[in-house]
């Protein structure tokens, strides 16, 4: 019990330490103000992703953008200069399927929850975000869970850990929505005796739910179109259609304004959704997981959808039994844009190794492998003009590695987002003695005196939502209590 109090206090300590770090950072930014927030990374091996590997190359970050890439670059006197001799520079990793910082993952009580938004449940103090930065990840596609055929709306964020929530939001990222097919929306592995079964319970029902929703959305859109046309004609005393928050996002899908990210496993359900999309005239931006995508790679390519997949996660349930680590290789060869995602706060710390596995499985080139955690997910999220490669004019989301990022022996030295440092190993190491000292002080503090020694009985802290570990929502349930 004493530990619990310590835990609470340490939590607050940790929370306190971060603004402190941010303050230190902003002090250094003030120093840099004269140099207009410049960082010059010198003499690195630069993995540009878009135009090959550049040896002994400098990268200049200025005003949050990549200002120059080349040799013997000059920076202003106030610029931060980092000697990266022997080190590697690559763009920040983009994770196209994450549930980090979501205080709730599933609104699973209904089969269509397009009216709910992940934006409303984001926790910017989730410590796993920092751990992800320490693995070189800078951008996340925060998705609703997969408990329902049509789930909630997504949020794309940059991991600006230590900043207010508003600063996390990726400006201009196209909005998206989560769909889900197969075992999760039909609740195969989540049945209980006390809760009533929820429709649908079969893949037939999942198809019907989606078709029914788009049928309503089409009528809803027609109602608004007719209303607006009548307005345009100058008709008087019109009554607008009643707003429907559930159908509005679906109308945006029909209008091509909202990306569909659909969780799926089996080949047949992938084809099913392509069929519905073609019937209603919309595009699926990404299939998520797509474990049997390799069986229908041609059809996915023809539709123009991307696939955001696990490198080699398999076998944890029936619909994952035919998953193979060669999925990415086959999909890529058929022309599908493939990204590797984490779907896990743990795995999001080492997506570089997930990419490296693609060289092993299916003989992808190193460049193809790196694209799957940078440029490809950037396209899948519609942010390819902003991030995903080391090109002049792109956001300065850049990571310095001690060695080649596809090597298991490499680790991240520094992670920049918009030209600012959000993780730096040396800074992290330097902070540790202070943190340990403060922790020890807290443990000695009066409120932490054990009850056995006369201390008050501590109150149990309200725990945060446990880290999202079990990829693919295996834990998700209608009421989102794991």
């Amino acid at each position: 019990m004493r530990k619990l109090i310590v835990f609470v206090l340490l939590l607050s300590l940790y929370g306190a330490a971060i603004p402190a770090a941010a303050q230190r950072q902003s002090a250094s930014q003030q120093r840099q103000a004269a140099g207009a927030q410049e960082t010059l990374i010198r003499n690195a091996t630069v993995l540009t992703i878009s135009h090959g590997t550049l040896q002994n190359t400098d990268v200049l970050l200025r005003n949050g953008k990549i200002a120059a890439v080349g040799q013997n670059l000059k920076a202003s006197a106030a610029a931060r200069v980092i000697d990266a001799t022997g080190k590697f520079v690559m763009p920040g990793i983009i994770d196209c399927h994450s549930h980090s910082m979501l205080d709730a993952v599933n609104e699973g009580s209904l089969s269509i929850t397009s009216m709910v938004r992940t934006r409303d449940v984001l926790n910017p103090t989730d410590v796993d975000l920092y751990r992800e930065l320490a693995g070189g990840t800078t951008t996340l596609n925060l998705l609703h869970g997969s408990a329902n055929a049509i789930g909630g709306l997504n949020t794309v964020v940059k991991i600006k850990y230590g900043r207010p929530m508003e600063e996390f939001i990726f400006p201009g990222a196209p909005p998206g929505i989560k769909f889900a097919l197969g075992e999760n929306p039909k609740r195969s592995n989540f049945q209980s005796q006390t809760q009533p079964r929820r429709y649908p319970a079969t893949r037939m029902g999942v198809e019907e739910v989606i078709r029914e929703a788009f049928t309503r959305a089409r009528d809803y859109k027609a109602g608004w179109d007719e209303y607006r046309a009548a307005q345009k004609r100058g008709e008087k005393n019109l009554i607008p259609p009643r707003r429907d928050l559930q159908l509005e996002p679906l109308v945006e899908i029909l209008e091509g304004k909202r990306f569909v990210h659909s969780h799926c496993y089996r080949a047949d359900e992938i084809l099913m959704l392509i069929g519905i999309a073609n019937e209603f005239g919309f595009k699926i931006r990404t299939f998520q997981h797509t474990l049997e995508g390799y069986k229908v790679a041609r059809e996915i390519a023809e539709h123009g959808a991307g696939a955001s997949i696990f490198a080699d996660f398999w076998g944890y349930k029936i619909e994952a039994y035919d998953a193979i680590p060669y999925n990415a290789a086959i999909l890529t060869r058929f022309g599908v844009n493939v990204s590797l995602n984490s779907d896990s706060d743990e795995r999001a710390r080492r997506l570089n190794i997930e990419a490296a596995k693609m060289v092993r499985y299916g003989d992808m080139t190193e460049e193809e492998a790196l694209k799957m955690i940078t440029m490809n997910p950037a396209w899948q999220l519609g942010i390819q003009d902003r991030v995903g490669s080391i090109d002049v004019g792109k956001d300065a989301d850049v990571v310095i590695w001690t060695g080649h990022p596809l090597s298991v022996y490499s680790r991240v030295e520094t992670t920049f987002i918009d030209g600012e440092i959000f993780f730096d190993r040396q800074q992290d190491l330097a902070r540790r003695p202070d943190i340990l000292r403060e922790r020890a002080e807290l443990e000695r503090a009066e409120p932490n005196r054990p009850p056995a020694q006369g201390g008050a009985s501590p109150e149990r802290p309200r725990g945060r939502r446990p880290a999202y570990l079990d990829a693919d929502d295996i834990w998700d349930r209608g009421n989102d209590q794991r």
Partner: protein
Amino acid sequence: MRNTGCDSLERRRARATKKGKTLRAVVSCLVTCALLSFAIAAVRAQQPSSVTAQQTMGGPPGVYVIRNARIVTVSGPDIESGTIIISNGKIESVGAASANAPAGAVEIDGRGLTVYPGMIDAGTSMGLVEVGSGAPGTVDLSEVGDLNPNAQAIVAVNPHSAHVNVTRVGGVTSVVTMPIGGIISGQAAVINLAGTSPREMAIVPQAALVINFPRVTTRSFDAFFNPVQGNLTEAITTRDRQLEQLRKLLREAETYGKAQDAYARDKSVPRPDGNVMLAPLVPFVRGERPVIISADRETEIRAALRFAEEMRLRPILLGGNEAWKVASLLKEKNVPVILTGTLDLPIREDDFYDTLYENSSKLQQAGVRFCISTGDTGAHVRDLPFHAGMASAFGLPRTEALKAVTLYPAQIIGVADRLGSIEPGKIANLVITDGDLLEARTHVRYLFIGGRQLPLTSRHTELYDQFKNRR
């Protein structure tokens, strides 16, 4: 639960079944014979018929000569260009010199390639579960009840599990496979990942007793996976009761062993009845065989070490996420650790981000015997080299990282006379690669287990071949 349970066995079960402690309840409540057979049928229905070919054993243990290869012996210095002769399932010779090929030997040109001993994962449940969720008929991880010294992994290992081939083609050639859950989970086996029967796979059929060390857990999950916050006082009482139950059973086994010995010496003393609960425990309570004890948190590790000492067991710690905090004690008591949490998220929110990446490096520096394991039930044991690689990125010297998945697990589990390095007389478990064994970018080019050359095929390569050229 993984965030709060802090229990490698529970974690592993959760990983496998995703239902943690409620598995048994759910199984007993919901699963009828019909459902079971349906689930099995469903698994089968998804297996393309061509996949049945994957269980080929390869040729018989033959005579092979590997020439011109770089040889990483692990136990001795590397040989830049050397020759290995394999015969009768064993490594016959290793050396820098070019050796004459025995008659009928198959020659393998190892130019540009490196030979390593096969990797060993000492913390799996390989072959005891095929599909963790939705197919309970394929799950044989945990018996009913808390005390199951008679649940032997070797009895239920499925040699034809897809996990076996999928794992070995990545270079992991042997594993310790163990039941999990309860208090005494059962007995672990050391197996090679080749063979058509559990006995053919077995290296040590009853290698260790597995104890899931009782711990204070206030957080559990109800049948519908809703978190249930328990009472701390009750949780402590439960832990104490479980520990007492365990202590009592082990003491009874000791007494039982003595009674049997007495009767063997003198038939006039009362003959002890056969007892399937106590008899298998005798070699473990006598310290003749090791006991794998799972514990992650510092307090639990310390309690486990005290308990092992009190009961005069030969403990091997499993899990060990906070072993680095207990390093000097582990060193003092000479207790080895099978680390399963290298890639877990740190236990506490205020732990440093690399706490678990660094765990093995700290143990190594403190002189603690350790090895690195995935702690996975089966499907992802193939990732073992990447766990070791991450430890190396955070301070463990590369040679130590390699030992941590080859020689060290062999030593810890007591099979270093047969496995873990390339030395004459050892079982010929060899992996020949085009690069560093721990790198994800590396390809395995040849594979030998028990002196048999095995095809580099698995359920996954066969599905790949089936679909890669689909028109």
